[in-house]
Structure formats: structure tokens, C-alpha cells
């Protein structure tokens, strides 16, 4: 199917370029914006994989909240100067970094391309109702744990900053 073919390769290209941008962009702001590109790409991927609900959340939560938070911190700390990218890692460290990352990627790729995909089934609806039903019934334990984690983390982050004000 030609459309799917184009969809995949376009998404892949956007994602990989964006990801490389995160790693190699000399400017922190550019790195954050590159991540934004990747996130959009992945959202498209989610959509292509029959999960429109997740695609929407990816854009709203990730792109809309998390990335903005990153940008906010960049502004707050006023990181404006141009940073060395991979050139910053010198000599052995750089070589080892690339080798390690490539080796692990190779291992995963080699493993998944060696065949052995499980039996395929019909795709379920990825709409909000299906996902929500799964989240609030069968997998409610995940929701509970994630909720308490977010609450505690929020309290903790407040504590981290509040402490500074009180001094």
C-alpha cells in the first residue's frame, strides 16, 4: 500500500532528523524544538498505528505541556550560549559513546528483524472510549499508582523550591 509506505518513511525521516537534532543541535533551544519535531512525528506514527487518542494526547500533553516546561526552564536559567554538541565529547569518550549506542541499537534491530513476530490480530478501536475503559477498569491499578506518584512528585517539587524560599 503506497500511502502507508509514504506515511512510514516520512514519519521515520522526520523522527530521525528531529532526534539527531536533539543530540547534535549546538543550541539548547534548538534541541528542545527538535524534540518537539520528534514528538509530532511520533504522534503521526500513533495515528498511523490506529491510536488517534494517543496521538492527540501526545500533542496535547507532551508537546503542549512537557516541552513548554523545558522551554520555560531554558528561559528561566537563561541558557543562551551555544553549546558544543558531540564535539564536546572528546577522544575515547566520544568513540565509546557512539560505539555503545550503535551496538545496542544494532542488537535490538538484529533481534527484532530475526523474525518471530507474534500472531497478528485485528486492530481494535483506539478511540478514547476503548482506551479509557481499559484504563479505568482492567488497568485501574496503573492509574492509582501513577496518580499517587504524580501527587507525591508535585508535593516534592514544591518542597524542593519552597525550601529555598524559606531560607
Amino acid at each position, binding site marked *: 500500500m503506497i500511502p502507508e509506505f509514504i506515511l512510514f518513511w516520512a514519519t521515520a525521516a522526520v523522527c530521525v532528523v528531529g532526534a539527531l537534532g536533539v543530540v547534535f543541535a549546538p543550541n539548547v533551544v534548538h534541541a528542545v524544538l527538535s524534540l518537539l519535531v520528534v514528538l509530532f512525528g511520533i504522534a503521526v506514527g500513533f495515528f498511523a498505528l490506529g491510536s488517534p487518542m494517543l496521538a492527540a494526547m501526545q500533542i496535547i500533553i507532551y508537546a503542549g505541556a512537557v516541552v513548554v516546561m523545558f522551554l520555560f526552564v531554558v528561559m528561566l536559567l537563561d541558557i543562551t550560549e551555544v553549546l558544543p554538541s558531540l564535539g564536546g565529547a572528546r577522544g575515547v569518550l566520544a568513540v565509546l559513546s557512539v560505539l555503545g549506542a550503535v551496538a545496542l541499537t544494532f542488537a535490538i534491530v538484529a533481534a*527484532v528483524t530475526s523474525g518471530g513476530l507474534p500472531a497478528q490480530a485485528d486492530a481494535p478501536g483506539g478511540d478514547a472510549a476503548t482506551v479509557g475503559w481499559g484504563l479505568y*477498569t*482492567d488497568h485501574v491499578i496503573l492509574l492509582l499508582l501513577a496518580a*499517587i*506518584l504524580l501527587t*507525591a512528585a508535585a*508535593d516534592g517539587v514544591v518542597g524542593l523550591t519552597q525550601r529555598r524560599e*524559606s531560607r
Partner: protein
Amino acid sequence: MGYDLRPDLTWPEIAMLMLVVAVMFADMILRPERRGLLFGLSAAGLVAIGLGMVLSPHGVGTAFHGAHMADGFSWLVKIFMTCVLLTVILVTWPFLDRLRSVVGTHLILVLASGLGMMALASSNSLIVMFIALELATIPLMILTALGRGDSQAHEAGLKFLIFGAVASAFTIFGIALVWGYSGGLMNLTDLRGVVAAGGAGLPMTIGVVMLFAGLAFKTAIAPFHVWVPDVYQGAPTPITAFLAGGSKAAGFTALLRVAVALFAPGEGEAIIDWPLALAILAGLTAVLGNMAAIWQTDLKRLLAHASVGHAGFLLMGMAVIGTAGGLLGLSALAYYLVFYAAAVALVFFCMGLVSRAGGGDLLSDFEGLGRRSPAIAAAMLVGVLSMGGIPPLAGFTGKILILAATVKGELIWLTFIAGFAMVLSIVYMLMILRALYLLPPREGAVTGARLGRWEGAALIILSLLLIVFGAVPGPVLDPIREAMQAMAGLSPTEIMVAATGG
């Protein structure tokens, strides 16, 4: 479809959840100078939960559609976790003045992390395990950075955070592969069947490798242990104790469940000989940790390296899975863990008391403590001796049990490596001992750290635990063995050999 919330099985977690929320509200309501009461509330809640678990018969079964597994093993771990949390709160007590406005946050985070650890003990589903791990870890990261308001704690927090994030990325990617390539199985009991039938293909094995890397980070197994010294050193003392005792125990609990399900040999030749890999890593960890500990001047950093060494011993108990030493190994692991945590709590509590009186964390700050504060020094001595594996303390008994398991499991080379590591551990133990008793106090050293009545009682109780159950391990070991037998016995794989082979 449905909630499948089995309150008879999950009530400890639910109670913990309510306790966290209660402390949160109390923190909002109470006036700042009365925040000491939060300690009382937390401790009372924990005692109630702990007693409840001790007194009520533990249920056996699953909740949340098999994601949550309640059995004797998880029950024991939860009781243990309650004790650890109580001790951490106790160890925090000397720092009350320093914590000031963040007392409430501190307690909430400790309890939330404890809830994560308890959920971890019962997690039968990989994804629940992941989220429970995060719930156990992320509050710890904040707690680390929440420390003394200095750059050390912040640095340590940052390092912990970055490493923890990378490790969790590994874990979740691994879980994704395992889940997908096993055909959508998330529960360990189901996955165990796949592995036992020889159905673990290469993609799934790579997934297990990545999952293992994440868990090995948590349990500080070499070479995934590198973050430990910096974080332990930089974190505030009570949190270091929590990391060394509770967090490590939680990690091992998870690893244990994974090991029983995924590492035991199945039909046909496994792609990775996990028991062998674990044995090699265990030997490496024990030797590396203890070796590095010898050259430390900061007591916390020393204990951090030492804790890596202990992780090596613990892993040895896991490496004998599937052999005749399997059951003994698992029981030894649990026994070792319990009393390692007790020793850690004892030592860090003593350090906290010295620190409160104005002392530092350097080894030289403890010189002549035997003369300055005999009671604290004596308690610390017991803890350190136990860690160093001196008979008849529990640390020794644990090491002997581990070694016996490796002997039973026909891993005599590992026994020898463990022996070597034991000698190394004696050396750093001796360094601490020397500082405590043989060297004279330095000029301007803190004299006579205060010791309240309750604090003294805590020291005595912890010391007695190490001495009594070291000499007579039966009362602790028997229930552990039964629980382990039940947990491992669920398996159709060769671990059954352990249950019957003796």
C-alpha cells in the same frame, strides 16, 4: 472487565495510600512548629499497618486481573518494608531540626516511596512493576536533592535522576519487547510458562536483557552500580539508609520475581544462560564493591561501596536458581537482605546521632568515638561487625547461608570468590573499628553525643536483632523458607527441584 480490587489482599497498599493522604492533609493543617506530630502520625500508621499484617493471616491470590499477587513472600516483604519505613523515620528523627519546613514533604515522600516498594513486592505484572519502581524511586530522587540545602545533595540528586531516568527508559523498552513478543503477556506467571516451554525468542530475550539492566541499576549490580557511591555520599543520612536498605530490598524483590519467572532454565537451550550470567555478575559485584570500599575516607561513601559488595552476595543467592541449592539460595537471599537492612539502619542511625551532635561523615570524624560516646560506638560496632560478616552476628549467618547455597548449587568457584570478597569486607570493617576504638579522638572532636531514651532503646533493639537472630536464625528463616517455597513452587520449571532436592 471490572476493577477486581480485592480488599482482603490489597488492604496494606490501600492503607498506605490513605496514610500518605492523611499525612498530606495533616501537613497542610498543622502549624509549622507542631510538625513534629507528623512523625507520630506516620509512625502510628505504620505500626498499625505492620501489626495488622503480622496478626492477620495472609491471603493468597491475585487482584487487578492477575497484576497484583498476594502470597506469603509478598506479605513478608511488606512487613519488612513497614519495619524499614519505621526505621527510616526513626533515623530521620535526629535531623528534625534541620528539616524544618519540609518535614511534611519529607515524610510524604518517604511513605509514597514505601508504598511503591510494597506494590513492587506484590507486582506480578511487568508494567505494574515498572510503575511501582518509579513510585519507589522518584520520591527518593527528590528526597536526595531535598537534603542539606547544599550543593552536594543537589549534585547527588541530579546524578540519581539522570541515571534513574536512563534506567527506567531501558526497563520500559525491555518490557515493551517482552510484552509484545510474548504475544501480549504481561503477567509473570504467564510469562513463566512461555519461558519454561522454551518459547522465549531472541527479541524477547533482548527485552529481558534491557529489563534486567534497569533492575540491576536499582539493585546496584556491577557494572550497573556506578551511580551508587556519589548518590549515597551526597544524600542526607536517613535517605542514604533508605536507599541502602529499603530501595535495594525493593529492587531485589522485583528482580527475584523476574528471576523466578524468566531466568530459570526452560526446555531447550536458553539464549542466555541466566544463572551463569548472574553468578558471574555476582562475583564481579562482590569483589568490586568490597575492593573499592577499602580506599574510602568518607564513611558514607565507604558504606556505599560496601553495599555494592552486599548486592553481590545477594545476587549469589539468586544465581543458584534451578539447582539443588535454589531454595536455600532464595531463603538465604531474603535472610541476608533483612539483616543487612537492620545493620544498615543501625549504622546510619548512629551516624545520624553523631551528625546531630555536630560531627561529620568522614571516617576521621569517628576516631575515638569509643571513648567519646561509648553507647553509640558499641551499637555501631555491632552493625559494622555484622556487615563485615563476623560471627555470630546475622551478617555472618547470612553469608554462610549464601555460601552454603553456592556449595549446594555446585558453584564452588563462586564460593571461593565469595570467600575472597568476605576477606576484603573484613578490611574495611577493620578500618571503621580502628577509628572507633583504637585511635584517639582528634582535637575538637564532638564529645558525648546525646542519646535519648527512645533512641537508646532503638539502638538496643536493632543490636539485639542482629545478635539473637544471627545466633538462632530459625525463627526468621523458617517462615522465609516457607514463603519462598510457595513462591518458587508455583513454577512448573526446575526450581521444583529445589523444593524437593534439599
